[in-house]
């Protein structure tokens, strides 16, 4: 199968859906001729014109608000938010408006919009351009949250998102835009709420989101050589969360590590770990361990930044300890 980059996969998904549905359009900063600073959207304005690939002023709350209104009245806006860190600027429009309008109207109004943004540290971009803020959005009922872990996932999840009748936020890892993966020429969709078992194993379950799937797979490869068989699962969407698949795996392996690039405390890993603890408690041989980013603003200096995110080595170390039955945490 042909291999394309995550960036190309996103671009294809957008082009296909924009061809299919004339009510779709893209809204964001430098999305047209520039194709965004990451060049993810290159070529779209040439095909769809500036009426449907709209360069906005640097007004994140404003254009997010426009997207909500357009979505409520019959269009399907796809918002491009240049850095995930800017989500703090649009929280009101996303969480007080988009997320609640369907409910507050008793089901009468819909807000079918997609917010594409990104996440991920180690790009030497410092504290305001490196955050992975998916937990914040996931906490608010009414929004769905997708976290693609490869080009294949990015395309299928984005197409599903565009057809969804709810606000969907997609966090792409900005360091993965040039990563290639096999992506079929034929159309496909990836349903929300269906986790992807990337690798089967019997000793421990590694649940990982986005770029952390690669981290988990690398750890699993290392561990396999040592005779530890990891099951690696990518939830794909954290809202809705495919709890059943995760729980079934943990019942089988009796151990789990949850890995996500957001800050660890009050983060994504806490939610997933809690559900496993609640619903697979009697099957667990060891505590479910969370591995998120350190609870510090992301520092600029490479000497510090690299310390803040989970690595394959750290995951493998932790898995070894859990499998060895070390009571690593309990005092």
């Amino acid at each position, binding site marked *: 199968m042909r291999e394309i980059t995550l960036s190309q996969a996103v671009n294809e998904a957008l082009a296909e859906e924009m061809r299919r549905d*004339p*009510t779709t*359009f893209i809204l964001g900063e430098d999305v047209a001729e520039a194709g965004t600073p990451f060049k993810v959207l290159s070529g779209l304005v040439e095909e769809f014109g500036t*009426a*449907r690939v*709209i360069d*906005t*002023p640097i*007004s994140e*709350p*404003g*254009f*997010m*608000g*426009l*997207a*909500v*209104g*357009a*979505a*409520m*009245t*019959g*269009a399907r*806006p796809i918002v491009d938010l240049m850095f995930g860190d800017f989500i703090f600027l649009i929280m*009101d*429009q996303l969480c*007080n*408006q988009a997320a609640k*309008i*369907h*409910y*507050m*109207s*008793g*089901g*009468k*109004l*819909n807000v*079918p919009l997609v917010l594409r943004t990104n996440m991920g540290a180690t790009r030497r971009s410092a504290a305001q351009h490196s955050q992975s803020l998916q937990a914040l959005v996931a906490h608010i*009922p*009414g929004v*769905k949250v997708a976290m693609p872990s490869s080009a294949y996932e990015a395309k299928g999840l984005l197409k599903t998102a565009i057809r969804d*009748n*709810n606000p969907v936020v997609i966090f792409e890892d900005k360091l993965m835009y040039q990563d290639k993966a096999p992506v079929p020429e034929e159309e496909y969709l990836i349903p929300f709420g269906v986790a992807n078992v990337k690798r089967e194993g019997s000793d421990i379950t590694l649940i990982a989101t986005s770029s952390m799937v690669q981290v988990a797979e690398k750890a699993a490869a290392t561990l396999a050589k040592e005779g530890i068989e990891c099951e690696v699962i990518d939830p794909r969407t954290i809202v809705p969360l495919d709890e059943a698949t995760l729980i079934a795996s943990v019942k089988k392996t009796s151990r789990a590590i949850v890995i996500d690039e957001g800050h660890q405390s009050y983060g994504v890993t806490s939610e997933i770990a809690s559900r496993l603890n609640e619903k697979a408690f009697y099957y667990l041989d060891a505590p479910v361990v969370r591995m998120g980013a350190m609870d510090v603003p992301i520092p600029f200096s490479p000497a510090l930044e690299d310390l803040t995110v989970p690595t394959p080595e750290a995951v493998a170390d932790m898995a070894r300890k859990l499998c060895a039955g070390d009571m690593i945490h309990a005092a």
Partner: protein
Amino acid sequence: MAKAKTNTEDYLRMYRQMVRIRTFEDNANQLYLNAKMPGLTHMYSGEEAVAVGICEALTDDDRITSTHRGHGHCVAKGANFKEMFCELLGKEEGYCRGKGGSMHIADQSHGNLGANAIVGGSMGIATGSALRAKLLGQDDVTVCFFGDGATAQGLLYEVMNMAALWNLPVIYACENNGYSEYTKTEEIAAGSITARAEAFGIEAFKVDGQDVLAVNELTQKLVARCRKGEGPFFIELETYRYHGHHVGDINREYYRTKDEEKSWKEDRDPIVRFRGYLVEQGIATEDELEAMNAEIAKDASEAVAYAEQAAYPDGSEVNMHVYAD
């Protein structure tokens, strides 16, 4: 007062709609005072000519966005009393199945995109509705209602900039009732409100919000121009709220005088003024108007009685409508 017109039907409908709003609010206030209404509510009484003057210039395809003080917009855009009172009391037959209440009330089928409990929260929504109209080649216009206090939200300037750049069919209707909660507008708004819109290249107008015909005429003109692609526009409507900021705001002397309230009520009431005009112009007699008032009062009390008896949503609804299918 604007000059006479021959369209009797339109005038009587405007009168009726203003009285309907006043009547709705009087009943809502009574429900609050009788502890029959959950929560609080913000009365539109005194500002009727704004909502009615504007909404009567719109078709059902045109959209509006409303505010925390949204009953007036809701009635003016075509809602029924029954579903409105049901909503106010949290009943299943309410426009939002009881999930929205006073601060989110809207008859969505008439183009009301919702009342909003975030001050300024709907400025983006209104502008986005206009963007959608342009994008899809539809010729409807969207009116964004908001208060003087809401002009302090930066969002307004962000969306006005985009509306101006892209010539969107949206009208920003600033209901300047002189107060933002318990604070006079002049203490929280520097410079000039219309100049702010003009600085973005938007034509801005100031109009007497107690004169329904003046409001309606201006809006008709601007709506027509919007449909020709000449939008956006900005209107500042000078008006006054008769009640407190919300129904619980009873002792108001520390922020505004009784004299001030009295003079607005006695000298500039939009309904009284328009009624005088209708009679003077021979469009209706006092008796006819009284009969209309009585009929509206009856409608309202029936709707209140209905809503009081109506069922609450079933508990299972709590989980419904979080996500659309």
